[in-house]
């Protein structure tokens, strides 16, 4: 119904316009040609003048009204060091083009008004004026030269890559439909290698985890942090189509391209809270953040730097938002400390782990520390249940009593423990699941316990302190009703005896 009314209105308006046109045409015939020209000239001459005044007023008024969105002005100041350079050129260009805009428009519409058709007026015959042509070629050329020189100076400074020996931190931003994944280097300060062919559901970036540099890398959650005043080199990539890494307040923008990493180097100059405090001065930022909640927090209080996509990448292009917090170095360090290595938390020991057969240095260190603490606790404890510890990281070749090569770290930890507490002796107990003959299981568990004892004895622990014993499948930890539970029941433990 609405559309029908709209359609009727359109038809009606069209008919009215056609009629107006026809009526004017008829009155023109009556008025005579000269009178029509005179009226025409009067009306359109005045309209030119009115348009000139209204237009210039509108332009200047709106520019004043929107001054706070102009680059480098008021609340729209750059939040990065290099941004000041380009905001400055923006301002110079704005002043120059503003003057040219006003003057040429005054000339254009005023001349149209002043030289409007009048009966008997003779137009001047000025086919050309070479002096004028030279002037109005030379002046724009000089102005453009100034803008080019200043612009390129700024451009080459802003776009320069980091130099060798310069102090900076590098992070990696990867775009995909429709979101960003950021990767921070861990303690080594280096981002590890990747190969897109390694991409899996868990390893969405295709990180090559055989590269030790990847093991401490961090993939933070929704909120990203960067320290203020520190030069950041963002390595920018895309997985699927073109995207663009865009930080509006930092004047950072660079395409993310599959197969062709790009970069942008910038130094954040204001922390989020400093920026918020500056915004506080402007009335529009004292409006409520959520218009539906007038008493709630104000806009400046909720302000955050944002990461957006600025290259059409498909139907979700508009939704690739991330929040970026710029903080002091101390706050940044504290945040970084809370972040966990992506490899160790998400990949290690799971299906996509290429290092399953290896024990990493970091794991050796951590396990030694943990083992030391555990054995100390067990020795000091008075309850008997606490006296039994599981040797989680030792394993045997399938069906035999041969220790795997990676078991030695755990056994060495036990050696260290026994040396640290020379007065204790231990029972080493082997356990199996209920798969196979109980007698065979018992024999296997006994010989496995003996293999452990032999390893320890070979490392100088007196045999009297070691009592190996096989229990077979008689002491399951959990019911043997699933492969996972059976794996839990295949274990080696030791119990502190005195």
């Amino acid at each position, binding site marked *: 119904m609405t559309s029908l009314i709209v359609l009727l209105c359109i038809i009606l308006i069209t008919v009215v316009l056609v009629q107006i046109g026809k009526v004017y045409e008829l009155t023109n015939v009556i008025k005579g040609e000269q009178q029509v020209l005179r009226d025409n000239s009067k009306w359109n001459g005045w309209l030119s003048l009115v348009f000139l005044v209204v237009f210039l007023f509108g332009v200047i008024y709106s520019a004043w009204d929107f001054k706070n969105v102009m680059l480098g002005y008021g609340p729209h100041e750059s939040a990065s060091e290099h941004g000041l350079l380009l905001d400055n050129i923006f301002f110079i*260009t704005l002043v120059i083009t503003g003057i040219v805009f006003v003057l040429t428009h005054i000339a254009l519409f005023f001349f149209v008004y002043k030289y409007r058709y009048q009966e008997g007026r003779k137009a001047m015959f000025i086919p050309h004026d070479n002096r004028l042509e030279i002037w109005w070629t030379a002046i724009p050329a000089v102005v453009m030269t100034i803008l080019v020189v200043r612009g390129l100076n700024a451009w080459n400074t802003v*776009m320069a890559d980091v130099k060798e020996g310069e102090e900076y931190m590098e992070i990696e931003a990867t775009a995909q439909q429709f979101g960003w994944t950021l990767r921070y280097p861990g303690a080594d300060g280096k981002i590890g290698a990747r190969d897109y062919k390694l991409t899996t559901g868990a390893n969405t970036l295709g990180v090559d985890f055989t590269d030790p540099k990847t093991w401490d890398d961090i993939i933070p959650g929704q909120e990203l942090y960067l320290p203020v005043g520190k030069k950041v080199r963002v390595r920018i990539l895309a997985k699927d*189509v073109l995207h663009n890494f865009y930080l509006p307040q930092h004047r950072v923008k660079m395409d993310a391209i599959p197969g062709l990493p790009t970069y942008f180097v910038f130094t954040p100059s204001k922390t989020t809270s400093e920026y918020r405090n500056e915004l506080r001065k402007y009335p529009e930022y004292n409006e409520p953040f959520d218009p539906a909640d007038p008493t709630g927090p104000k806009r400046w209080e909720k302000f955050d730097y944002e990461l957006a996509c600025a290259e059409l990448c498909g*139907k979700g292009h508009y939704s690739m938002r991330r929040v970026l917090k710029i903080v002091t170095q101390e706050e940044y360090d504290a945040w970084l400390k809370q972040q966990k290595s992506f490899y160790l938390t998400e990949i290690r020991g799971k299906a996509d782990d290429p290092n399953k057969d290896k024990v990493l240095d970091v794991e050796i260190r951590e396990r030694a520390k943990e083992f030391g603490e555990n054995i100390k606790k067990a020795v000091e404890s008075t309850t008997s249940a606490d006296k039994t510890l599981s040797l989680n990281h030792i394993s045997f070749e399938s069906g035999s009593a041969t220790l795997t090569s990676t078991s030695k770290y755990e056994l060495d930890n036990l050696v260290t423990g026994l040396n640290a507490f020379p007065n204790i002796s231990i029972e080493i107990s082997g356990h199996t699941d209920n798969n196979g003959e109980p007698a065979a299981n018992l024999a296997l568990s006994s010989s496995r316990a003996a293999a452990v004892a032999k390893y320890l004895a070979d490392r100088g622990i007196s045999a009297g302190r070691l009592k190996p014993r096989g229990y077979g499948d008689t002491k399951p930890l959990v019911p043997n009703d699933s492969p996972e539970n059976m794996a839990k029941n295949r274990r080696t433990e030791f119990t502190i005896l005195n």
Partner: protein
Amino acid sequence: MAHVNTAAETLEDKLTHELGYDDHFHEHHHGDKFQSNFLTTYIFSTDHKIIGRQFLITGIFWAFIGAAMSIIFRLQLGFPEADLAWLRPILGKWIMVNDAGIGKLDPEFYYALVTMHGTILVFFVLTAGLSGTFANLLIPLQIGARDMASPLLNALSYWFFFLAGVVMFISLFLSTGPFSGGWTAYPPLSALPQASDGSAAGMTMWIVSMALFVVSSLLGGINYITTILNLRTKGMSLWRMPLPMWAIFVTAILGVLSFPVLLSGVLLLMFDRSLGTSFYLSEIVVGGEILDRIGGSPILFQHLFWFLGHPEVYIIILPAMGIVSEVLSVHARKPIFGYTAMVYSILAIGFLAFIVWAHHMFMAGVNPFISNFFVIFTLIIAVPSAVKVFNWIGTIYGSNFRFTSASLFGVGFVSMFISGGLTGIFLGNSAIDIALHDTYFVVAHFHIVMGIAAFFGMFAGVYHWFPKMFSRYMNETMGKIHFWGTLVGAYAIFWPMHYTGMAGVPRRYYDGGASFDAFRHFEDLNRFITVAAIMVFFLQIVFIVNFFYSIFSGKKLTVKNPWGANSLEWTTPIKPGHGNWPGKIPTVQRWAYDYGKGGEEFIPQYIPLKDGEHDHGEGH
């Protein structure tokens, strides 16, 4: 408005009889084998005047479709909460109606609309509709030729354009929708159907349509160049040509040199899509699938695309500049100021057009050092552009300016070209482009400088040469309502976008940036823009109504030269037939801009120079 009295016409006949060039042309008063029935006269015509009109009317059709699309996506941006269920009869499944009965535009289709709007307006309307119309109509008439060098190629040029349009039109109705990856069609988005629905069959049809369009453009361009170089009448030296001829000549050269590059670019894209090559693809994981393509570069496509894409904007604006120069001079009753400077600036712009393309790619990951050259060349373009603007203003200075719809649109063109040109100085400076690239500032810039300005040039041309095309006038009152409304309305649409652009709001955001705190505080402005866009859209319907109404019922032309113009097209009969001039072709004795010289209001080109009189075209 008749400036030609019978005495002058008699003089013209006399001079043409004495000095005219006899090419033994035989006029066929009752049609010849090429113009004997409706079909051969109006549809499969080889007459340049009919082909020009075909381009124009097809262009108007596409302009309507393209503009209507912009209204739909402006509704989404200006009124994101509005119920669009009423559009379901037209858009069908692309309007998602929720349980409450509220209809929303599908984001996929939003992007399809934006893409089609760009493609249609740039190629079908402002290239074919503008340049095709006026090149065809004006070249033979203004240089004094019977027709194009090859009328058949000329007709084929139109029909390839028509086919391109048919293919694109059909793609609008695909179940996966038309192409939706932006008019620039950057791969990998345009190469991977997995990445976007529109990159499936929609993209294939887009490429086919573009290929047909390039064929059309080349057939036309070669013809325009050949005709201008070879078929000028006696006395019509290059330096006596009216400015539209210079503009169209350079435009045609730009098209012939750059369109093949686009074709090669999209062909390689086609290979990537269907033959498993990797010109543009490398190390891609899309939708969980690891593609086996390495070594390609998406930036290669951008170079190939913009090697056409940048000259393309001059292909659009140069004919408009030529038209406006002519129209302003005729209606100012004053020679165009600095004819020679105007020609050299056209040539300079044409040359520079080929060495600035990468200014579209400052942020695309090309070596920042290379950008230095593109900044320098880009900002140099401001110089010939400024020269043109000053010359137009100089033309109006000291004139006796007649307000016709045509001349008003000419003035509007100059205003738009100044406004949009100046913002180009921001964007061409790569340092500022870091902040403004891909924001609404860019949208404002190019819509004003090559969208609205080119449209204004086109309107100026249509109002000015309508009497030559249809032997009737368009209604001037409706024309002036159309002009003043559109001038104000177009600024109302695009001026505010500068501010959202400065604030950093990215273009091509379905929700206008509503999910970003930095971008979402422009609801009022977006509503204002949308309302202005709707009003301007309806004002264009006034033009369309005026156009078609005037074809059949406009005031009849009673004189050959209604505007008192100097160029040759106004020496043809009121209803020029096949071959344009019955009998001899007039010869040219002087340049086209002797207005107000020596007390004469105008001196047409066929009038011989007096003893010792200076010819301001050749004798510069």
